[in-house]
């Protein structure tokens, strides 16, 4: 473990019988590399195929088969390292991690042990408005194992090797996290970065992103406590729950006079508890050694520079730019950059329009509605052009904000060009002062008592505006109505 750890953040302490405790968390995230082929074979990586449909001779570890590195996976790891502002190692080594299991055909996993492809980096996270930098220890490339299936036969297990040999990036954080919320924010942000980079789809349901969570507790300022590793937690929600229950378990043991055994544990979301999987004594001796079938992985500074040049704008930079360029508030900018598609959508709406109005419409109307219906922005029924069209109609006074919401509903459910809908359905605002004057005169004439009252209490003009708007079927320009009313009633 590390001697240098970040200072405790305020408000994260957990109360115990003997005083406050601090939880210390480090994460090992396994992210499946986005690539068509596996790390060391040409077999496909597509999810959901029939068992053993994507298995090459190499994946099945047939005699005499040799691994050949997939260069696309290397590029993806370097891109990820760059996205984590990390040191890129121009030379790295693949090692064999030896153990026996039926879903590990070679009897060893090819991984990187002492010399990983990516070294130290960092991730900015934000929890409750407070920013924090979390250190990245390393990122290395390794092969995934296959899958053992135990529920198909009373006596035998089946093995599916489709996943065997698929490239994973193991991304290891420093023990810099101090609460369940920080752990969740870290994985969320890491996933956002990976998705921006296109190096991992971050789909936790398919197991394409999974986290091992290392948890220990200590009194604030005390040396690090003994840690337990909670294996393979597969949702952001479960990560938060696992940290909380594990921290509480450890505090209770220590406060009862016990001590924590270093071990690997499993989180059971159903029971809301962690369970021992294997103790330190039962841990494998993996007999790591450099894989003699593979030469050291080496590339040039130029290669890295080339990948750096083609890197997309990342969420932190994008957020800063949105705030500077569109005058957005920090929170709104954060919401918009949380997904690359969302940010792209917003930018399409904001192009040539007022950024704040565009942000309001994307966040409040569009995202609100998508969220309610459980849609992704990628399959939004309303396009950025359509939202832009609605914003334009408000800006040039063709429709009111209230009508715009009705218009959004129509576009959402029926589609079509907003301007055309306004035209054909007579939704245009009436700005013709003659027509408005006639309506105003009618309302004044019909309500002499109210005319008396408004003179004493000018804020009652709202009632007159409402009457005129009602009479115009909502199409009168409210600002024009307001001005004409004021003049005719002799206010100001």
């Amino acid at each position, binding site marked *: 473990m590390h001697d240098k750890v970040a200072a405790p953040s305020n408000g994260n302490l957990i109360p115990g019988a003997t005083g406050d405790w601090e939880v210390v968390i480090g994460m090992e995230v396994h992210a499946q590399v986005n690539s068509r082929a596996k790390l060391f074979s040409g077999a496909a990586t597509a999810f959901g195929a029939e068992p053993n449909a994507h298995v090459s*001779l190499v994946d099945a570890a047939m005699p005499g088969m040799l691994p050949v590195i997939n260069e696309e996976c290397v590029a993806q790891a370097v891109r990820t390292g760059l996205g984590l502002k990390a040191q890129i190692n121009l030379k790295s080594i693949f090692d064999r991690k030896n153990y026996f299991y039926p879903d590990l055909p070679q*009897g060893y996993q090819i991984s990187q042990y002492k010399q990983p492809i990516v070294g130290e980096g960092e991730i900015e996270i934000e929890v409750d408005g407070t920013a924090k930098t979390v250190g990245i220890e390393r990122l290395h490339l390794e092969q995934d194992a296959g899958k053992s299936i135990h529920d198909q036969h009373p006596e035998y297990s089946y093995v599916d090797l489709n996943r065997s040999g698929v490239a994973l990036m193991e991304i290891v954080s420093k023990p810099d996290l101090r609460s369940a919320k920080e752990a969740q924010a870290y994985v969320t942000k890491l996933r956002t970065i990976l998705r921006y980079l296109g190096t991992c789809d971050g789909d936790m349901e398919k197991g394409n992103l999974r986290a091992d969570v290392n948890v220990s507790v200590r009194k604030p300022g005390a040396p690090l406590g003994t840690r337990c590793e909670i294996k393979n937690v597969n949702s952001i929600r479960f990560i938060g729950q696992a940290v909380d229950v594990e921290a509480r378990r450890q505090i209770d043991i220590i406060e009862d006079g016990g001590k924590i055994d270093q071990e690997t544990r499993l989180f059971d979301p159903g029971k809301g508890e962690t369970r021992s999987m294997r103790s330190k004594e039962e841990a494998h001796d993996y007999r790591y050694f450099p894989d003699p079938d593979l030469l050291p992985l080496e590339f040039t500074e130029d290669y890295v520079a080339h990948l750096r040049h083609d890197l997309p704008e990342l969420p932190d930079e994008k957020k800063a730019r949105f705030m500077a360029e569109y005058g957005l508030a920090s929170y709104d900018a954060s919401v918009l950059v949380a997904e690359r598609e969302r940010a792209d959508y917003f930018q399409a709406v904001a192009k040539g329009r007022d950024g704040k109005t565009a942000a309001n419409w994307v966040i409040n109307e569009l995202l609100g509605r998508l969220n309610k219906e459980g849609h992704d922005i990628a399959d939004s029924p309303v396009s950025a052009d359509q939202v832009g069209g609605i914003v334009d109609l408000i800006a040039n006074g063709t429709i009111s904000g209230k009508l715009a919401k009705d218009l959004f509903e129509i576009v959402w459910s029926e589609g079509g060009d907003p301007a055309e809908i306004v035209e054909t359905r007579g939704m245009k605002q009436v700005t013709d002062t003659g027509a408005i004057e006639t309506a105003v005169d009618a309302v004044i004439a019909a309500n002499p008592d109210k005319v008396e009252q408004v003179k004493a209490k000018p804020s009652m003009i709202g009632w007159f505006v409402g009457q005129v708007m009602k009479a115009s079927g909502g199409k009168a320009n409210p600002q024009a109505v307001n001005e004409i009313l004021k003049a005719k009633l002799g206010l100001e």
Partner: protein
Amino acid sequence: MTDLTKLTLVEARDGLAKKSFSARDLTSAHIAAIERANASINAFVLETPDRALAAADAADRNIAKGTARPLEGLPLGIKDLFCTEGVRTTACSRILDDFKPTYESTVTRNLWDAGAVMLGKLNNDEFAMGSSNETSAFGPVVNPWRRRGSDAKLVPGGSSGGSSAAVAAGLCLAATATDTGGSIRQPAALTGTVGIKPTYGRCSRWGIVAFASSLDQAGPITKTVEDAALMLSVMASHDPKDTTSVDQPVPDYAALMRQGVKGLRVGVPKEYRVDGMSKEIDTLWQTGIDWLKAAGATIKEITLPHTKYALPAYYIVAPAEASSNLARYDGVRYGLRVPGKDLIDTYENTRAAGFGKEVKRRVLIGTYVLSAGYYDAYYLKAQKVRTLIKRDFDRAWNDVDVVLTPTTPSPAFAFGEKSGDPLAMYLEDIFTVTVNMAGLPGISVPAGLSAEGTPLGLQLIGKPFDEGTLFRAAKAIEDAAGRFTPADAWWLT
């Protein structure tokens, strides 16, 4: 008609070209020889006569059309470590059982693409672990050579004992072999044949059952130096499927071979004069020096100071890699499975029944030296020794072009003579392992007979990818020493 099994590979090629005989004649003669001899020699563990005759007929058609390829119609034996598509491949281990690969190794693919004919699969020490061919699951191979006046069975060397015996006995024109610590050169020396282990990376390892990946190399065992040049020129290739194979042009070895050794600088390393080396080996070595000098080479004593550490370091590196390479033989996907009450039990039963004693010994040694707490003291230190051995040679190449040493410390020994004593057996590799540790090319060429009338070999070691110079020097020795064949073809009677 002459006995076609007595021809060299090059003589047979030329005879086919001149239409002195057909490829079918040539293959049939070898099939007949195998039929008569294999019961006593046990060189072939699988014979493929039908396939061989079909290939020979195809070769005859190509020769008739004038489209003969470099090895058109020439019948070969293939060490059972090479995966051959649809043909049982076992590495002579019970654990592979009746395994039939669905793929062809790159080296054998190169041979078939050049028109060669496969007679069958050749015996070897189990997983190439051994120096006498006594660890094979198919039983030992008998050396065609006997001590003068004795019927005692001698070993043909190992691990490529099937290859060396088959070539020496005229059961195939040439054979493929592999060499991890001496498995081509030592059996060649013990049978009066020529064997070359090329530079690491010269031949693709794809489709060859792995023993120790950083040391394994394929090469041929042949009757003459020129045959070896012809075989290697076809076997060698850069292969994208083996990232340790090297993209280097394969020169015309036969042409290089004919250049002679005038002006060649030959190094003689003093560290190879080991304790207990027999007088006759020492004499043979001196004779080799004299031959090369007479042919115009200059001789220089050199020093390779880390030589004595090579063998112990080899017996750490090779078993370490083997322990991991052999983990895939677990009874789950192919080969032998001996069911047990649960998974661990099945693993244990399968591997206990499937692996022989020597393989188990090396898996245990390898597992031990890679274990936590021992890795630095053994494996890491052995890798450092390896770097020092390489550096010894790098320094030597400033002064010399090729190094001359004996191939083995002694001639062919009797069955059982060393198999009970692993250390005595491991010493068989004392002159050959340095070459693997440094990744260099080495060739063994027959140079004389022992007092008992059995063959002895000299080894030439070259710079990386300078096999051409090895063929030049080996040819000079061959020209001076002549060829060696057993006086009495007892296995055919």
